[in-house]
């Protein structure tokens, strides 16, 4: 049986983890490679690096980071942030990423998803969607870190992304991100039900129950969280046992 995935996400800026990762035994809390190794050993099902200050100048730092991580972690690695072109995808895949995530560039030009999927296969193309509630049951895509409204309906855009060839959707609720109030379950469910591809729920996790709800009520295929793991509040194992207790199948290592 296919298992629900738990994915810790590391926000990276200039080759360092933003805010640091607070693990026992981790000598350098700001080193993304050390954090990735620790999560791999702890039983994370995948890893996600998000380059939050992606600029042309610091791309090589990210490539180096991805390369060193891929040499030591034998679980899937998704890399996002500042990905605009097919060439960006190629460079990250060559560095050792398993999946590459488009965000604003896919909103501006959805066809880039098709170009990338044609070249490298849907299995490695993720479309990240940042959505905000505009009225009950209605969500709109926002870009530029949630500041810029686009007028594009999130559900319709998710369907378009899947048609273009994205193999997975990384859905972040901008209303919930950073609030620790739990996923936006109505949004997650609306998107999960609308597309044939897997949806990763993101944004707002504060408790282990939130992870469970993302799957049972939001119908997500995977759940992504950052702070609850980074600050040592909960371990990946605790999260998995909590899900097992709620009858959600997970990979126990």
């Amino acid at each position, binding site marked *: 049986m296919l298992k629900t995935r738990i994915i810790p996400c590391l926000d990276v800026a200039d080759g360092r983890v933003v805010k640091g990762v607070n693990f026992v035994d981790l000598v350098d809390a700001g080193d993304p490679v050390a954090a990735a190794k620790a999560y791999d050993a702890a039983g994370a099902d995948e890893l996600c690096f998000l380059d939050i200050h992606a600029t042309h100048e610091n791309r090589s730092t990210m490539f180096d980071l991805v390369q060193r991580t*891929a040499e030591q972690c*034998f*679980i899937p690695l998704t890399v996002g942030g500042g990905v605009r072109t097919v060439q960006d995808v190629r460079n990250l895949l060559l560095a050792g990423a398993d999946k590459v995530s488009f965000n604003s560039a896919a909103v501006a030009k959805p066809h880039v998803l098709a170009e990338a999927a044609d070249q490298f296969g849907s299995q490695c193309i993720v479309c990240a969607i940042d959505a905000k509630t505009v009225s009950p049951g209605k969500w709109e895509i926002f870009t530029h870190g949630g500041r810029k409204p686009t007028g594009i309906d999130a559900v319709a855009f998710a369907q378009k992304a899947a048609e273009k060839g994205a*193999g997975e959707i990384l859905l972040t609720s901008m209303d919930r991100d950073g609030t620790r109030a739990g996923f936006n379950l109505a949004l997650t469910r609306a998107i999960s039900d609308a597309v044939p591809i897997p949806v990763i729920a993101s944004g707002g996790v504060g408790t282990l129950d939130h992870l469970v709800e993302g799957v049972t009520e939001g119908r997500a295929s995977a759940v992504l969280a950052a702070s609850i793991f980074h600050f040592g509040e909960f371990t990946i194992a605790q999260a998995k046992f909590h899900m097992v207790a709620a009858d959600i199948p997970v990979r126990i290592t």
Partner: protein
Amino acid sequence: MSLTAIIDYESGNLHSAEKAFQRMALEGDLGTVLVTSDADIVAKADRVVLPGDGAFPACMRALKGTGGLFDALIETVEVKARPFLGICVGMQLMATRGREYEDTEGLDWVEGEVTRIMPEDPALKVPHMGWNDLIFDAPHPVFDGLSTGDHTYFVHSYHFNVSRADNRLAHVNYAGDVTAVVGRDTMLGFQFHPEKSQRVGLRLISNFLRWSP
């Protein structure tokens, strides 16, 4: 010194496969691992790994179109009977035929067809993406140290329907049976990515490097 060739025919990301095979070769003193598109190296390799991402027809075309690689592969695997491992689409290419986009002839090493996964339950997503637990159908030396319930990482929208039940060595459940491992004689194919399957995957790689059928 044993030489393992991972064939590079410009089909996807070989970085993690290279690192995983090299690491297990180093740990077990199991020879050299080379990622190569050089037909001469493939022809003299002691074992061959064929990875593959993307679509069946594109992969088959790329394999046939890369300077003598295809002939070298046939020579090493069919004629010399050196151990072979196909991974993901590399495993699917072992089939008689692929039915992705268009009908494409495969290597026909394991009788069967590659068809789209069609879950009856619309809640089940395609691609089949993530960790699934292996159910073994037959024993094999490469399964040494593994047990039913061990997880490997899958990402695929098409799957291998074998014609002969004894060619399926393991499967997983995803709205029915999905073939996870095919094999016969000196040939083996994994639908999942061992290089992405952490401890279990590394063990399978190590076992393959030790396998002398």
